């Protein structure tokens, strides 16, 4: 055993403890960094290689002491993987709930200004017209309420159509580029680049070092962020780099981005507006490589998880889900039923309106609602179909209120032109409020049909947000578990700091003692 050996041991101890304090200070510095995992120094004793058969003395004399074995980070890989798959699902549900709540806001009927209230006012106006069939105020009131009704129809569809374009666009470039899916794909592609870059750096640094651990934290954070978009498959290599794939399509391998998502319009995809097949989505997602050439075509059907999955499927109306487009369809049915029912009564045989001096009756031929699409059938009869977006009150009636057909004579031989107070047609119109046999409304009255539509939307939104909330709770508790297992605790660090500080101080003292021993030896010789 030599003095210099003790000196060496204490010198190494100084270095090692100083490094340990570096790690502690790094931990403290990063205690609020998102995704940072606490790192700890693994120390080990230095063991010299001693040949068999050497003397005990020689063995004792060997240069022992402390050495830095590795710096490891607190990690729970299983939990992190689980977290990512749950996070994907949460992203899917949250996005779905968000889309559903947009419908809910549009169709919010509790305010008293919804379609339901408009229908109710319309019938009130009709009832008033029954009392005063020749009164211009009652007629204006009726027409104004009919106008409010159709205006509500058109504003509802306008909002719904705008909403249906929120997810994937409405088939135009501008709308696609401002859609939620487009923005999400851009974000995701940027993350893919980041991941490839981290992969590249990870390859070059030594595992078990402080730097490598910091990179792994960064990688994990990118993977967490990516999991919100889609439930990607992640394969981890020994050096910490990962291979990321969407289903079987590899997107990132090592430092290379093999594929990025790209959104194109169906007309571009199929090569012309006329070639787009029926029922095609408003935008199509391809996978392209770094040169921009398409690797995988039309992966819309594979997009089934995460935020992207919810956005791509937003307009698919499978499982009886009410999409914005589906709600518009239902409103179209209602508008068509109302338009045709009232037009039929307004222009039927025996319906009479006032002449232009309001003094006598004349045959009514002017429809109340216009804007429908009329087609002629084979047998020569015509069918008019109204859409909620296009139905309007006939401006001719609006300008000539006398044209409202209030009178009706069931018996053509009893038509009395002077009977301007006859309001039998208004009574027939009033009776439609309780009519359950309207074509296309499944045995429901106008109001029942609408209320049940609102009810369905409410249930859908409510169950969607309940599911999303429950899943968010799962994710948050997982995240909390990960945080408590891997994050920095100040008390721990301070304890470590004091621990290493004392070790450092003690080693310095040993060094000092050895040093004075050398001094004594040197002074002996003089």
């Amino acid at each position, binding site marked *: 055993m030599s003095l210099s050996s003790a000196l060496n041991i204490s010198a190494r101890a100084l270095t090692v403890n100083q490094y340990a304090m570096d790690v502690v200070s790094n931990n403290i510095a990063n205690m609020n960094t998102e995704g940072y995992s606490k790192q700890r120094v693994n120390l080990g004793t230095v063991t010299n290689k001693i040949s068999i058969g050497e003397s005990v003395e020689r063995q004792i004399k060997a240069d022992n002491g402390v050495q830095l074995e590795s710096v490891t980070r607190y990690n729970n890989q299983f939990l992190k993987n689980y977290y990512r798959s749950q996070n994907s699902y949460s992203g899917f549900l949250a996005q779905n709930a968000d889309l559903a709540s947009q419908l809910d806001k549009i169709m*919010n009927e*509790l305010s008293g200004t919804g379609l339901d209230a408009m229908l109710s006012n319309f019938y009130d106006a009709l009832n008033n017209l029954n009392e005063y069939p020749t009164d211009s105020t009652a007629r204006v009131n009726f027409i104004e309420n009919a106008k409010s009704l159709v205006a509500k129809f058109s504003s509802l569809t306008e909002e719904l159509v705008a909403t249906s374009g929120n997810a994937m666009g409405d088939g135009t470039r501008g709308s696609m580029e401002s859609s939620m899916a487009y923005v999400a794909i851009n974000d995701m592609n940027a993350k893919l680049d980041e991941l490839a870059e981290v992969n590249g750096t990870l390859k070059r640094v030594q595992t078990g070092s402080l730097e490598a651990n910091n990179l792994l934290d960064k990688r994990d954070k990118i993977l967490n962020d990516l999991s919100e978009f889609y439930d990607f498959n992640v394969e981890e290599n020994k050096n910490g780099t990962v291979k990321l794939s969407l289903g079987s399509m590899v997107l990132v391998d090592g430092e290379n981005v093999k594929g990025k998502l790209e959104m194109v319009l169906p007309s571009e995809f199929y090569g012309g507006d006329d070639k787009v097949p029926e029922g095609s989505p408003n935008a199509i997602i391809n996978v392209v490589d770094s040169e921009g050439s398409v690797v995988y075509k039309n992966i819309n059907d594979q997009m089934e998880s995460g935020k992207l999955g919810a956005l791509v499927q937003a307009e698919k109306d499978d499982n009886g889900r009410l999409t914005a487009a589906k709600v518009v369809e239902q409103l179209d049915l209602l508008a068509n039923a109302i338009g045709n029912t009232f037009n039929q009564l307004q222009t039927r045989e025996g319906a009479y309106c006032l002449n232009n001096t309001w003094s006598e009756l004349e045959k009514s031929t002017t429809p109340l609602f216009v804007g429908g699409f009329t087609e002629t059938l084979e047998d020569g009869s015509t069918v008019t179909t109204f859409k909620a977006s296009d139905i309007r009150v006939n401006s001719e009636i609006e300008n000539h209120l006398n044209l409202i057909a209030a009178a009706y004579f069931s018996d053509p031989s009893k038509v009395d032109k002077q009977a301007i107070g006859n309001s039998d047609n208004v*009574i027939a119109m009033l009776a439609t409020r309780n009519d359950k046999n309207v074509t296309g409304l499944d045995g429901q009255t106008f109001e029942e049909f609408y209320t049940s539509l609102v009810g369905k939307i409410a249930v859908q939104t409510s169950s969607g947000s309940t599911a999303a909330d429950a899943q968010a709770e799962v994710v948050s508790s997982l995240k909390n578990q990960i945080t408590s297992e891997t994050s920095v605790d100040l008390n*721990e660090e301070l304890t470590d700091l004091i621990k290493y500080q004392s070790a450092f101080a003690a080693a310095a003292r040993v060094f000092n003692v050895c040093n004075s021993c050398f001094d004594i030896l040197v002074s002996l010789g003089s």
Partner: protein
Amino acid sequence: MVERLTSTSTNETLLKYINNNLTKFNDLTIKLASGEKLTSISDDPTAAVNILNTKRQVNQLNTFKGNITLAMSSLSNQDSVFNLAESFAQKARDLAMQASTGTYDKSALEGIKSGVDEIINTLSDIGNNEYNGNYTFAGARSKTVPYTVEKDAEGNFTVTYNGSKATSNYQKKTEISDGVFETVNVTGDQVFGYYEKVQTEDASGHKLFKDASDNEVYYNEAQEKYFYSSDDTEYTGAVSDLTKIYNQAEDASGNKKFEAADGAYVFYDGASYFYENGDAYTGDVSELNKVYEYNSSGTFGAICELSSSLGRMIKAMENSNSDVQQVAEQSIRNTLDKFSAGINNISTVQTKFGGVLNRLEMTNNTIQTNELQLTEYLSNLKDLDFSSAITDWMSAQYAYQASLSAMSQSMNMSLLNYM
């Protein structure tokens, strides 16, 4: 339970709970501020649908209530009109009774006649009753004056009914509950009757008119045009220039009926004029007045017949024609039954409307009860129970405050404080 606890995870957990408390507190604050249980339909879909349905029902009930109030006031107006009409009809009947006894002299009868004539005008005013801007008894012709009274040169009255006829099947209806419509009007011809000359028709059933120069014109209803009878060319003059041609009364063998100056009837068979008993009429033909055919019904029929019979009786008295006097007296007596029938018409309608009024009142009561129940139900669905909401709000506030103070206390705690 998690094994390791770190300052970061503790902070995050605490923050989450604070956030939960804040959300709960905020939700309750919004509810308290708005006074509504639901802020969005998805808060409680079942309640939302119930609210919509109930709101609609309450709204409908309000409409029905309005309709019933309007109908009831219209019916009670009609009721008082009927009372008035009945009292005048009764008065006219009393006069007829007095006149039919044969004890009155000419001047007294003239007094009775002028009284009767006055009642005709009064009754037509009553029949022209206006309510809410419409003529009550004109049926669907709500803007047409229902009764016009004319007195011809001989002092004979015609009371024409211009409203829509009971036979047109039109009834003014008002909705008093879901799909139930109640009739709330009656046409004048049904309740007060009329006394109209019968317009002459040609062989094809077209009504005949005379133009300004006495040419015969007929009205084709199908084409809604007037044509000359002579050559079927269209009449292009003003419709207001046309006057109706009326049927002259005839006896059983088709002889035209006239009235002589003394009130006696004279007939003309195309060759000679003669009295009812066959004696030749020797007087001046130019003194003969045509007797027209009348459609007579109800109170107006009775009173107009009374008036013309009184006229004949006075004429007979003037000329001391006792035969005619007796006949006229008999026809006055005949009007008594017609009066009874007329008054009966009015009181029948009155009774019917009394029933309607009762029904409306009953429905109104039911509606009010329903409305009360529905409003209460609606309030249960959508209105906040303030006392429990405030209690909840207070405890949410305490919870939030407690979590805040717990956080601020525990965040300070670390080894750092003791070094």
